[in-house]
């Protein structure tokens, strides 16, 4: 049995632990009445027990992490994820049309399309369709820069 706790698995467990601790602390700080803690506290206890179990399982190697994707694929995923985060943030900052056009163009090119002219043309048509059809069904105003 080998001891294995990959960096990304450790990051996930740390993320769960930090968020759960914060939610529990915040709920207790807001009010210690039973009605306020009826779900938070029992779930926090369960999460604490499960965290210990999962870390122990990973470190002891009793439940291995399994085969992880290669480094190149992981870096590609992270780039796409960051680009998606920036795109989501940019929707209201730069306008839905511009943000969507750039994201789809870059995404198609990043996905492996070799014809240089096709991604911007596709991105423009897709953005136009999205703004005119999908966007028109929204009950909220949608910031646009060009269209």
């Amino acid at each position, binding site marked *: 049995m080998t001891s294995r706790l*990959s960096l*990304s*698995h450790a990051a*996930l467990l740390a*993320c*769960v632990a930090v*968020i759960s601790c*914060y*939610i*529990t602390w*915040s709920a207790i*700080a*807001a*009010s210690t*009445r*039973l*009605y*306020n803690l*009826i*779900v*938070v506290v029992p*779930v*926090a206890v*369960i*999460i604490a027990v*499960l965290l210990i*179990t*999962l870390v122990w*399982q990973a470190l002891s190697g009793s*439940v291995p*992490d*399994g085969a992880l994707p290669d480094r190149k694929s992981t870096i*590609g*995923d992270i780039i*796409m*994820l960051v680009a*998606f*985060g920036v*795109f*989501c*943030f940019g*929707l209201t900052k730069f306008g*839905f049309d511009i943000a*969507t056009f750039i*994201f*789809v163009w*870059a*995404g*198609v090119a*990043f*996905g*492996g*399309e070799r014809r240089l002219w096709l991604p911007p043309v596709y991105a423009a048509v*897709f953005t136009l369709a*999205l703004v005119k059809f*999908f966007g028109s*069904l*929204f*009950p*909220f105003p949608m910031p646009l820069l060009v269209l």
Partner: protein
Amino acid sequence: MIDTIAFAQASDLLFSSFGPWLYVIPGLLIGLIFGAIPGLQISMAMAVFLPVTFGMDFLQAMLFLTSIFTGGAYGGGVTAILMNIPGSSSSVATAFDGYPMAKKGQHNEALGLGLGASVVGAFAGYLLLMFLIQPLAGAVLKLGPLEMVMVVVWGLTLIATLNDSTVAKGLMAGAFGLMLSQIGMSTTGTMRTKLGNPYLIDGIAVVPAMIGIFAASELLRLRGSSYLVQSDADREISFKRILAGMAMSLRYPKTLFRGSLIGAIIGAIPGVGSSVANLVAYGEVRRTSKNPEAFGKGEPEGVVAAETANSSSEGGSMTALLALGIPGGAATAVLLAAFSFHNIIGGPAFIRDETELVYAIIIGNMGQVVLLGVLGLLTLRLLGLVIKVPLAYLVPSVLALCAWGGYGITGTLAGPLTVAAFAGLGWLMRRHNYPVAAAVIGLLLGRMTEGELVRTMQISGGNPLGYLLERPIAIAFFILLVVISLILPIMRHRKAKKALV
């Protein structure tokens, strides 16, 4: 149980002219489109088209709006099957087996199965409604928060069965979902965990979170491949195979019956509805299956259970609306608004004085279900074309659609940012074999659990056990829950152990 004179009058209202049916096909199409696009809700479609019903008579308006409801319930399942994006919370369980089927090249069969199960489920739901509307309405009035706690806990037990690698990971995903559901103002009005951000006062927006954790994270994983379905031959859209899939759904009569019954009963409980019904039905069918390990890997029975239950819950939700004038969810609330447009008040008096109208709505909905079968078959070929799109184009386009969908739900930047945050969480969870579906169930049912538990504690004066003894329906639910989730699995485990010896 059926008033034959009113039934004859209802038939006359529906079939003496084409008028009542005029808006059914457009309604079904609107529902299919809104249901199939992540971020566009069925209730949103009904609200958008509500003003159109001003010019219609009451029956036309009801049939138009309920046809959007019917079409939308199935539309959500189409994207769940083809892209692992549940169009709404009522299609979460459809994705569990529908998407693995699509990835195996069985998308035609999965779409057909879903359509067949939806048609049977919705028909059965309305059939039950026709026969049981009065007794069911009486039962609904007897349900209190304790009974709702039982139903919601029943839905939560599914978490324990969803594990991609170990039970601990499944439970951790579910518990973390429950924890995230506690962000924002509590049921009793205590402000907690808002991080100084006004968007978090109402907690995390569940649908954008669901879109992010299910869809966006899966799309990131697919990025390296060329097509959703790898083999060229398997990418074919075959009408014959869709039809075969539809016929295949009839091979699971027990599942169709159980899914319909669970859906109709849970759908009738105000505030619970189809989002819980599909999970409970899926969990029950998986639990009692001879082959539970096949579920989650493309088991047709899983698609049938989920789709039957979410479709039959529509009939159930109409029970509370027609018989009591209580809307069980957002969609029925829009229907209630249509009632008031036409100066009609739902409730016992409506059933007593306008019985023929009630029957006409129910029979009309059964007719709609048949039309959904035909229309679904015609449109599935078009909707299925998504698997022919190269992933280099599909991934960024659907990711963009997901972010737009998040905005469509919240109307603020919080929607797209929730999608992005949950996409990251989902990517990490999938990478280490944590079931993202369990986290969604926790997030979806956490608020409901808290609300019903608090109400139970308040009503019982802090003595829920004493209160339980006074509630026969709650006792029945409790015994059923213990038998199904504890005693039956133990018995089955012992039987399997004995068979090995």
